[in-house]
């Protein structure tokens, strides 16, 4: 029984140039990635991500300049900036995904670390737009940590959880759908407008609920499913499954972010352990997802297949109570403090939501945003279709502290912060110590010029004097930690010494 698990978050940032809605988002996203990579001295052409070892990447290396000395204006010389794709020294992947810059956090094991390295991504996004803004003649590019544009488009914030392969997928589906339909009352980010294109006036709990059309499926952009079946473990495939969760919203507040990954990890743990035996399946779950989202008063009900009628909050209580019983049964938690933090906050938030939704202001994104919007509505008599409310919704997620409304609230002490600015700053460049991200990120930091490419499960070196590339597989997410390879990484004078050390058993 523990909240501990290998996990990571992916964020696609909304991107826009003020006054120029026709600006090419692919090209702009490429600039965002490239300018940040250049400032870090990291190559950002397409070959730096190791899609597969056998790719004929060698000839694709277009850029040999020392990136630190390159003039920023030269960055556009990259043959195709829309393919910018880098591994950062913190072990994250930063790249262009379709028409958005995406930050995929390094693998962490604890919810608090997930929050820290997720917020490090926001800080990286901020630094990227600052760097672009400092280039003469460059139109300003803004990034937004949200998931919908109000015109009909959505872009994702995905979670990844490593699970043992032996857990039966039908069990995962059965027990996760009711949880995913209702967890938005805790971790929804809130949205002005009803319907994918915000045709209806009003406020809803989730950014994403209106974009889901089916229960289970492989797609992420069409017919989005509540449970995504993409099965790329990026690890030893016969031991692990990577559960790719696409139903979440981007969170800017720590409590909601911590609970999103923490409670999901606990529910997965209960499924793996066979602890969930009752069937809490919800009738017509896609419609139920939207019903719950469309009622910020939390009174809307869903019907379980056994006939019970419950609110979304009630269903969350079922899972919390099950987790409490599981906790009592099992005393084998390697991270009791982290588990207790999630359990305590989960119960606190559910209790508050049942008593007074607004008492969660500062803790939950959707409640905090709603408090602000209701303030404007009360003061200025605004209807829900007023443009100013839609503007507040967008600007809520601006990564710039002078413009982003969450930043304004945080500066005024109106947010419950679980991590410190110092932790976030350090996580921009430092990987988590307890996963393979330590090896990946440290290789980029120590031996960046010799790292030919890297990926979740490999680091490929171009060793001076060797004709062939040297690929180091990192298929076990918990190997390559600081405790295991930290000394070797620091003491190896060069890549040759590192590879020799890795090949030598302790």
């Amino acid at each position, binding site marked *: 029984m523990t909240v501990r698990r290998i996990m990571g978050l992916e964020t*696609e940032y*909304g991107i826009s140039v*003020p006054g*120029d*809605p026709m600006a090419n988002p692919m090209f702009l996203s490429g600039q965002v990635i490239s300018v940040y990579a250049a400032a870090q001295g990291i190559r950002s052409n397409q070959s730096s991500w190791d899609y597969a070892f056998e790719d004929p990447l060698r000839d694709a290396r277009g850029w040999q300049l020392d990136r630190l000395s390159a003039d920023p204006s030269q960055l556009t010389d990259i043959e195709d900036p829309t393919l910018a794709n880098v591994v950062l020294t913190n072990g994250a992947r930063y790249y262009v995904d*379709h*028409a*958005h810059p995406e930050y995929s956090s390094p693998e962490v094991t604890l919810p608090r670390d997930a929050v820290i390295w997720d917020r490090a991504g926001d800080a990286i996004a901020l630094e990227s737009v600052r760097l672009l803004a400092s280039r003469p003649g460059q139109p300003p590019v803004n990034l937004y940590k949200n998931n919908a*544009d*109000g*015109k009909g*488009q*959505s*872009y994702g914030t995905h979670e990844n959880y490593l699970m043992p392969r032996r857990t039966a997928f039908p069990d995962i589906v059965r027990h996760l759908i009711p949880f995913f339909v209702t967890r938005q009352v805790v971790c929804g980010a809130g949205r002005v407008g009803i319907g994918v294109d915000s045709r209806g006036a009003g406020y809803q709990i989730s950014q994403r609920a209106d974009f889901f059309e089916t229960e289970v499926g492989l797609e*992420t*952009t069409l017919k989005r499913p509540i449970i995504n079946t993409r099965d790329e473990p990026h690890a030893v495939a016969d031991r692990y499954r990577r559960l790719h969760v*696409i139903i979440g919203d981007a969170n800017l507040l720590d409590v909601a972010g911590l609970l999103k990954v923490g409670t999901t990890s606990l529910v997965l743990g209960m499924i793996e352990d066979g602890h969930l035996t009752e069937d809490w399946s919800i009738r017509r779950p896609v419609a139920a997802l939207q019903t719950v989202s469309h009622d910020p008063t939390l009174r809307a009900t869903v019907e379980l297949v056994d006939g*019970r*009628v*419950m609110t979304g*909050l*009630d269903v969350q*209580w079922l899972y919390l*109570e099950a987790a409490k019983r599981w906790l009592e049964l099992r005393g084998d938690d390697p991270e009791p*403090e982290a588990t*207790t*933090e999630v359990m*305590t*906050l989960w119960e*606190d938030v*559910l*209790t*508050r939501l*049942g*008593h007074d939704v607004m*008492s969660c*202001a500062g803790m939950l994104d959707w409640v905090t945003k709603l*408090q*602000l919007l209701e*303030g404007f509505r009360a*003061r200025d008599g605004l209807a829900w279709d*007023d*443009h*100013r409310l*839609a*503007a*507040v919704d*967008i*600007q809520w997620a601006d990564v710039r502290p002078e*413009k982003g*409304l969450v930043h*304004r*609230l945080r500066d005024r*002490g*109106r947010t*419950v*912060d*679980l*991590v*410190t600015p110092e932790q976030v700053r350090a996580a921009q460049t430092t990987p988590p110590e307890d996963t393979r991200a330590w090896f990946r990120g440290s290789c980029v930091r120590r031996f960046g010029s010799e790292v030919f490419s890297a990926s979740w499960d490999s680091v490929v070196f171009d060793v001076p004097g060797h004709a062939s590339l040297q690929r180091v597989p990192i298929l076990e997410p918990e190997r390559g930690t600081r405790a295991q390879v930290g000394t070797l990484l620091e003491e190896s004078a060069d890549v040759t010494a590192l590879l020799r050390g890795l090949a030598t058993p302790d």
Partner: protein
Amino acid sequence: MPGQEHAKPQRREDEVPDAPEAPPAAPSGAAVKEGLSDDIDSVLDEIDGVLESNAEEFVRGFVQKGGE
């Protein structure tokens, strides 16, 4: 768990929480000050100063391509 009247399972109606405060494990100083709603007007005033002046144009210009 038989029965059909579980619409309110185990919820803690009797525990009335006060204003949000940080959990025990949170860093000190993270707690939100009491009486949040008292100064909402000053928050709105500050946000007036940073909100895009032409809200309609700003909202219309925020156009994204689908992702994922």
